[in-house]
């Protein structure tokens, strides 16, 4: 790229781009030396326990903390009135969505601790600060809160019924926004010309992201310097700082340092400003002590943002040969009790613009009502809006194929955007820069032996099982995001990324990035980029991330952006290093700068045998004796703020094959085959790992995970791992992952598209399409997630007469011979 042209092919540099380099970060994790927030020990620290509402909706009529305040070990107890007395602000949403009529969405106040009313089970009502956590919990029992319970509403569609309880007085009808996108008239017209219309109602279930590290916060206030340090397990330290300072605590940003060291998984749920981050920063100053808080897992269920929870009606218009003519989608998105940091953007701009999918559907219209309920706030989770879009589109296609008697793969092939049509402008705005959708579909269908499906179904039937295969073709707008695109759609945040490459006098390089790895292996991959582009030995590159005091700025790691945007920033910073290095080299080698070229870490002058390594240039830059000081500054340290010109569009096809035991309803995954286009692959090992994990999360939603609220009381019934089913090793098969690199991203210097969310975006759909394929043979054509055993059995029971009748021995030997006969999973 640019000045860094290389004769070498990608993948040929040792530890460079395209190599499965083993991860730098592994050793510390494997030795138990990771540094997670809860591992910090600060002298003088006190512990915080957050008292939470047991009611879904209630007025706080009185709150007496006097006894708790005098309990053993208690430092202080802070409540909503203290917060108001201190004149502090509310937690903002960083996307302002507009209604159909152009007015702005409702933004009711979200205080970090309830001031007069609680709106969900888990809403914070008091903060107990004590010498030990046990003492804080003991004191919490002494706080007397009197509630006047109010009627609660937990389901999105219920919240917009005329008589629904009102969650916020300043959000009439519980409506946050009523938003639309697309050309309604053109879509109506397409439907009026349709040969066939497929209609479908689906629920995209509510789930809890549940990274294995519970959120953790440590706050320190230095009263001499009037400075704060906030250690927090976040994906996005600068965002936390900006929102905390500007909107909430009203303190200047240079007085606050946010540090996020090792983060034990994020998946989107750690990219928000949370009430606890506010409360601890506030408490640290109030009580003059370092304070710490780590969620119990049960608390995670009540205080981490939940995800998805869309109720959607979709319609697909087709002509007689199965060509898609139009698509219209109407969604009620449950936002929970308050707007979380990103929440308004998720069902709208993060979701609906992706409804074109991989297809040429010419007319699309979507509308989304965002509604408040008495539930935990809902926000981003891996894929964030795109899995929801994929789900309705791909479910509709399968339904249409069934209704019209068309083959599911063939109807998709017929409607794919051809690679020759790239760049392709979809009707909803996104412009796909590159992609060969047909190639991924064919690869996956071939690897999954789609042709042999009928035979396998027959074989399964003989064993008393229902076999199904599901296809999902996904595409996602990633590499977030062009700042201008954010602004146009109501974003109050930029989308660029920052990278700084600082050469040290010895030739080693420190890379500062505003992205933040919480499992993705940036320390490894970013070093690969620097090694590849600048010829610095892999071991001589170190990444610094997750610290606002050390990194100029950043937008963290969300939306599969780190390689595409953060990596591109590194490349451009590297180009600037090379440009400066050439001028230094030209001066020292006494040649024209135009005659200096850079390759393999060396500056050479054409026509001479003069050569300087980049390490020698770095040395010269920091010891500028023989140096063009009249032309430039000493030092070799370049920074880039890279604002992408477009989103990237990772795409591919996922195919799931499974078997249902009709006697129990248990679904067993047999194969999961994917073919992806992520553009250029920087580290195949890591990319495969990202895909595996992403698939598992999609499978989790499809088969296991779901949030259940009691509709009357608003109590969370799935409040721990005892009732919320996490995918375990025995629930999953090994995955068959392949990719092609023939359609690199055209607008960033690495050609990468991003791989972090892809697995999740298509997987739930592939599983559910497979479940329905298996059950359609007995007349079941619809079911919502999760396809848990009891729900599958119930769906099948309606069609009992058509069930296959296995022989007694076939059914009884369904176990694998283990006498424990663990029927689940065998």
């Amino acid at each position, binding site marked *: 790229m640019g000045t860094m042209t290389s004769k070498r092919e990608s993948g040929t540099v040792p530890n460079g781009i395209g190599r499965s380099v083993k991860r730098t970060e592994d050793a510390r994790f494997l030795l138990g030396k990771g540094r997670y927030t809860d591992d910090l020990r600060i002298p003088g620290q006190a512990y915080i326990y957050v008292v939470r509402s047991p009611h879904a909706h209630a007025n706080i009529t009185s709150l007496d903390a006097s006894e708790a305040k005098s309990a053993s070990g208690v430092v202080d107890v802070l409540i909503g009135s203290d917060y108001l007395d201190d004149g502090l602000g509310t937690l903002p949403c960083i996307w302002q969505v507009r209604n159909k009529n152009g007015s702005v969405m409702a933004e009711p106040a979200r205080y970090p601790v309830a001031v007069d009313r609680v709106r969900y089970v888990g809403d914070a009502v008091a903060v107990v600060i004590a010498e030990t956590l046990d003492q804080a919990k003991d004191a919490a029992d002494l706080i007397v809160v009197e509630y006047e319970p109010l009627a609660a509403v937990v389901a999105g569609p219920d919240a917009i019924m005329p008589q629904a309880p009102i969650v916020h007085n300043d959000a009439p009808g519980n409506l946050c926004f009523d938003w639309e996108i697309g050309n309604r008239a053109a879509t109506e017209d397409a439907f009026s010309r349709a040969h066939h219309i497929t209609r479908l109602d689906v629920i995209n279930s509510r789930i809890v992201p549940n990274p294995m*590290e519970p959120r953790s916060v440590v706050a320190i206030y230095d009263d001499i310097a009037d400075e704060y340090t906030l250690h927090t397990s976040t994906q996005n330290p600068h965002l936390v700082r900006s929102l905390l300072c500007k909107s909430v605590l009203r303190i200047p940003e240079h007085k606050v340092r946010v540090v996020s060291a090792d983060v034990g998984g994020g998946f989107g749920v750690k990219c928000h400003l949370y009430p606890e981050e506010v409360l601890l920063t506030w408490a640290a100053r109030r009580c003059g002590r370092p304070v710490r808080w780590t969620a119990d897992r049960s608390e995670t269920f009540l205080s981490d943002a939940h995800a998805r929870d869309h109720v959607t009606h979709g319609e697909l218009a087709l002509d007689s040969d199965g060509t898609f003519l139009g698509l219209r989608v109407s969604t009620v998105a449950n936002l929970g009790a308050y707007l979380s940091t990103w929440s308004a953007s998720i069902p709208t701009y993060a979701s609906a613009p992706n409804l074109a999918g991989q297809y040429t559907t010419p007319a699309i219209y979507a509308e989304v009502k965002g509604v408040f309920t008495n539930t935990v706030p809902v926000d981003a989770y891996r894929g964030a809006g795109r899995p929801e879009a994929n789900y309705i589109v791909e479910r509709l296609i399968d339904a249409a194929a069934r209704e019209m008697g068309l083959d599911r793969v063939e109807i998709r092939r017929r409607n794919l955007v051809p690679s020759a049509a790239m760049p392709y402008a979809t009707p909803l705005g996104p412009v796909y820069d590159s992609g060969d959708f047909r190639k991924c579909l064919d690869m996956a269908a071939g690897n999954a032996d789609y042709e042999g499906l009928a035979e396998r179904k027959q074989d399964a039937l003989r064993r008393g099982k229902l076999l199904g295969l599901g296809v999902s073709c996904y595409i996602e707008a990633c590499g977030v995001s062009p700042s201008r695109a954010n602004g146009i759609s109501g974003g109050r945040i930029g989308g660029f990324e920052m990278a700084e490459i600082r050469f040290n006098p010895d030739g080693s390089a420190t890379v500062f990035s505003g992205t933040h790895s919480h499992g993705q292996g940036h320390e490894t991959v970013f070093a690969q980029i620097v090694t590849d582009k600048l010829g610095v030995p892999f071991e001589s590159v170190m990444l610094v991330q997750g610290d606002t005091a050390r990194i100029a700025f950043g937008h963290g790691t969300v939306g599969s952006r780190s390689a595409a945007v953060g990596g591109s920033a590194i490349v451009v910073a590297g180009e600037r290093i090379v440009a400066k290095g050439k001028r230094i080299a030209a001066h020292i080698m006494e040649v024209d700068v135009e005659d200096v070229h850079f390759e393999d870490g060396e500056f050479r002058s054409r026509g001479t045998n003069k050569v300087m390594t980049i390490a020698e240039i770095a040395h010269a830059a920091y010891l500028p004796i023989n140096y063009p000081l009249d032309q430039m500054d000493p030092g070799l340290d370049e920074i880039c703020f890279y604002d992408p010109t477009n989103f990237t569009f990772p795409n591919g096809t996922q195919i799931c094959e499974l078997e249902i035991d009709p006697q129990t309803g248990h679904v067993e995954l047999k194969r999961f085959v994917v073919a992806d286009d992520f553009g250029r692959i920087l580290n195949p090992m890591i990319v495969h790992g990202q895909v595996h994990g992403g698939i598992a999360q999609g499978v989790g939603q499809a088969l296991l995970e779901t949030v259940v609220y009691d509709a009357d009381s608003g109590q969370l019934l799935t409040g721990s791992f005892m009732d919320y089913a996490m995918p*375990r090793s025995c629930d999953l098969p090994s995955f068959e992952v392949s990719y092609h690199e023939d359609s690199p991203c055209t607008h960033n210097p690495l050609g990468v598209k991003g791989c972090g969310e892809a697995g999740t975006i298509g997987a739930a759909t592939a599983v559910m399409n497979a479940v329905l394929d298996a059950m359609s043979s007995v007349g079941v054509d619809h079911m919502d997630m999760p396809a848990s055993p009891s729900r599958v059995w119930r769906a099948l029971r309606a069609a009992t007469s058509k069930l296959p009748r296995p022989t007694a021995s076939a059914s009884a030997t369904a176990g694998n011979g283990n006498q424990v006969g663990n029927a689940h999973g065998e």
Partner: protein
Amino acid sequence: MANKVSLTVNGRSVQREVEPRTLLATFLREHLGMTGTHIGCDTSQCGCCTVLVDGDAVKSCTMFAFQANGTSITTIEGLASDGRMHPVQAAFQEHHGLQCGFCTSGMVMSIVELVEKYDGLDEASVRELLDGNICRCTGYHNIVKATLAAADVYRSGSAAATHTDTLLRS
């Protein structure tokens, strides 16, 4: 009320006065400052806190320090020896069996017991026998691969003799 608990941790003899309600996980993290053992849930499901107690994998969040009195504990910090990784640790690095690293400590300790105690492991049995550990990042694919690779190393020699050549880089 304070009582004394006395045990061996990674070969080191340890005595501390603690409240009886002190969990073994808390004892390790807060009293001994050994934060390699993680706590990922409060219902004894996730296995992040797994350590070996006299060679048995146990969830240290579901055991009082007092119940470990007189035992020998091995934690993630005690697996490597002489600057070399334990075969399970090495297999995790080789096969990308970890991403965020949080479940890894407990996962590795659980697998150490698995490969030490079980013969004839295959993919199906490994998947079945790892159900006490939850990982959210990897989808288990590479964990299973790493486990089978480590089991192979075990089969071809004793654990003590097979500490791998993977040099520690931290």
